[in-house]
């Protein structure tokens, strides 16, 4: 479960930009949540704070009851590695490695090599036949599927996606979204996605809209 209390975040780029202005949020375990909003509204900033990639200026974030907003970078990295998964708009797969090796990379940070699990995940994202291909030999949608498998390798309880379908055509975007939601349902894993596409956001259980740093739940 994710709980946020009075979250503030400012950026100082010449003038102070108030990106998040007192966000309060609660997300249940296994829930799928879409964060909607126009470009520059602060949804990625919120996601970064929730995913422990960035620190809020003020406020508290709780993950499964533990306050995580003031942890050291080492502790945050540990939580990201074991509890959280990320899929970004650009997959950033390592081009020198095969798809399967890319999937195994986060596990190797834990000193593990769960090859069978990686193969199972490749199968789950529909790429078992292409496990040994390099990312350059895969299409954009397939690369994003590998990135999803990579995000799932350490068995995270929460998966964050930031415009994960933003770089794909409509058909591929829907396929990826379906895959994410299926995984969310199967594994009862919390899914928090940032998107600016309200049509895609309709597929999520809960939708929030962020405008001028204020978060509102959509009906």
């Amino acid at each position: 479960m994710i709980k946020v209390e009075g979250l503030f975040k400012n950026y100082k780029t010449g003038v102070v930009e108030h990106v998040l202005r007192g966000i309060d949020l609660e997300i249940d375990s296994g829930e799928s949540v879409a964060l909607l909003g126009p470009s520059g509204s602060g949804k990625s900033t919120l996601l970064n704070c929730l995913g422990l990639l960035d620190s809020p200026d003020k406020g508290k974030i709780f993950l499964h009851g533990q306050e995580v907003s003031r942890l050291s970078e080492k502790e945050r990295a540990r939580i990201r590695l074991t509890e959280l998964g990320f899929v970004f708009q650009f997959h950033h797969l390592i081009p020198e490695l095969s798809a399967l090796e890319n999937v195994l990379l986060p596990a190797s940070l834990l000193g593990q090599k769960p090859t069978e699990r990686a193969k199972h995940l490749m199968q789950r994202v529909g790429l078992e036949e292409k496990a040994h291909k390099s990312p350059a030999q895969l299409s954009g949608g397939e690369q994003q599927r590998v990135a999803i498998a990579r995000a799932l390798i350490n068995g995270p309880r929460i998966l964050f996606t930031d415009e994960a379908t933003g770089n794909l055509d409509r058909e591929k975007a829907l396929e990826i979204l379906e895959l994410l939601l299926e995984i969310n349902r199967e594994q009862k894993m919390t899914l928090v996605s940032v998107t600016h596409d309200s049509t895609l956001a309709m597929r999520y259980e809960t939708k929030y809209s962020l405008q001028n740093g204020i978060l509102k739940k959509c009906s």
Partner: protein
Amino acid sequence: MLTKEWWLLTYKWLFGQKKAGQEIRKASYLMGASLWVALISGALGVGALSFVRALVTGFETQLALGVSDFFGPLSYKSGWRSEKEHELLAQKISYPVESYWQGQGLLVGPKTGRGVMLEGRRMWGASQQCSNLNNNTNEIPLLTIGQNLAESLGVQAGQNLKILLPGLLKGSLNVKVNAIKSFGLQELDARRVILDDLSLRCYLKASGKTLMERPGDYLGLRFYPKISPNDEVALMSEVSVLQKLIKETLRDAQPLVKTSKEQNRNFFKGLGFDRAVLSVVLGFLTLAACLNVAAALFVIFFERDKDMMTLRALGMSPLQMRRWILIQGFMIGLLGSSLGMIGSGAAALLFEKGKLIRLPPEVYNLDHLVFSFSWPEQLGVYLFGVASALFISWGVAYLLSRMKIVEVLGHRR
């Protein structure tokens, strides 16, 4: 983190772009170029250090051999003792032992005359009796002189010279040049001569002459154990054995046995100082060359910062990232140092075969320089190269691991 997979990934990350079938991107080109600059500059630094160390060590080894050839590996100044005392000590030693005395002399050759430092030497052993010398050599004392002296006197081996020994012998004496040697140092080759003491004594005895009075028969002893003059440990061990023996036999409470290097301490100290200065200067240059490793690591990072920061987002800790960058720096240092060592070996071979380095003949009487690659020394150079790259990489790793993930991945970059 230091698993086989990460080493393999690092290798592919650094060197495997083209092999991975990627189109050659700007990133690949920049990374490749900066990597090669780092490798070549590191190799040049390590290579120069290795080359110079091998050169100086070779030079020192050669000169030590020459000096030892003249002075003997070990010497002891007994201070004018009798023939009997020296013989008694020599009998207790299993390897060749020579007694010597020193004096000034004047050699007169066909071309010119030269003042020399004369050393009369007698090898101890059963055959060292006048009766064992053949008739021809019995007539005339035998002389060993350096090459430069022979050239300036205009004399060749087998020819006769006149020698004057002021304070030792009245009148002049005919001596035969028995051997012409090169000891490496001009000072030895041009100014020192060795007179066979037994042949001199036998000649004087046969001709009814005697040497003028001296405090004793011999000034000291030269020892010839089968130990390389560069094997300091074995020499020092033999020094202890000899000191004990001398104490017992000659009743010298504090016998001073010296190695040939110690007898030429100033020269070898000077050489050691030169070597140290050169090593420090080249060490700094190597360190400066290794700064290119930092440049390469920065380029690699900034060309692929999103890939690296994605890994950070996926849970790579700052420490793990530092280690990964250190692995990259280590690999570059290892490869650069290896290239440098290979280059240094190849250059040394070329210079030695081609006799490309010649020394000033007025100082050193060496035909050309021989390189000596002593493995502990070269291992030190190699490790220094790798350690320099690691040291520089540590600084880079520390700086880069402090970068914030959102600064790279965020939209507000």
